[in-house]
């Protein structure tokens, strides 16, 4: 039962991204071609509101459902890996038209071919794990 709340939140997120057409390959191309405001509006408004929400959490010291202060971890300050990894991710994002969330949500939408994309992404994750110590970070 303790996982039910995550399941429900996931269902909500899957509905939101589907209805926002964020999982569409076409929309991702349109974004990289700078032909439409749609995706920039989605990401931009999410981040703009997100900045306000996180500032409020920090300043008001809001508590989580467990009664503890909400802890928001900082990202590791690795410049090289953020940039190179980001570029590699971006190359793939435009090919598949789907970042990890949409890969799963597309499968839910009946696009079962994205199971192949998911397996490839798992292989990519696994390959990174093996090569990690030899890559610049």
């Amino acid at each position, binding site marked *: 039962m303790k*996982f039910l709340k995550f*399941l429900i*939140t*996931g*269902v*909500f997120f*899957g*509905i*939101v991204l*589907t209805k926002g*057409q964020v999982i*569409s*390959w*076409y929309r991702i*191309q*349109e974004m*990289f071609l700078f032909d*439409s405001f*749609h995706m920039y*509006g*989605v*990401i931009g408004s*999410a*981040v703009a*509101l*997100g*900045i306000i*929400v996180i500032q409020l959490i920090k300043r008001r010291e*809001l508590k*989580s459902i467990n009664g503890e202060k909400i802890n928001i971890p*900082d*990202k*590791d*300050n690795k410049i090289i890996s953020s940039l*190179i*990894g980001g*570029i590699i*991710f*971006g190359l*793939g*994002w*435009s*090919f*598949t038209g789907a970042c*990890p969330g949409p*890969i799963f949500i*597309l499968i*839910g*939408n009946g*696009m079962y071919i994205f199971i192949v*994309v998911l397996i*490839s*992404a798992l292989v*990519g*994750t*696994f*390959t*990174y*794990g*093996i090569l990690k110590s030899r890559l610049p970070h």
Partner: protein
Amino acid sequence: MDQILAPWPWFVVGPLITLVMFIMLYFGRTFAISSSLRTVCAIGGAGKIAGFFKYDWRSQIWNLVFIGGTIIGGFIASNYLSDDSHIILSRSTIETLADWSISEPTKALVPTEIFSWDSLFTLNGIIFMILGGFLVGFGARYAGGCTSGHAISGLSNLQVPSLIAVVGFFIGGMITTYFLLPFILG
């Protein structure tokens, strides 16, 4: 009800994504989807091969439950919360796609010319699905996050590495869209 069945505008979708991020923080977790791929590798026994996967994956099961929910959410949205509206793309994108021999979108979310079982073992299928998926998985872990972890959670928390990663996402995406796709499809 019609407004729920029609595609939702950006100013509804963006804030609802923020809401999901907030809910996850309120639950004492983070909104970071690509981490689930690492967890799946760890469950599959990858920890025996690489230390990167040697951790207590049981503490990450909540993320897999969330992922399971997103799949169900996609199913619900497509089967019960959709009308017949097509994706309305900008004219300019439609013209670019035509140059790549990709027809205008109908009800499908992705071009079935490329994303289908029939094309899986063609050169395009291998590049778009197998190589593309590999790069997404590899790049997300190398960068330390994907669109949810870096672009939404990280930028909202004013993280410099996230800003660099998002710049990288766009450099990579634009290389594919402006140089590789015209070369492969054109």
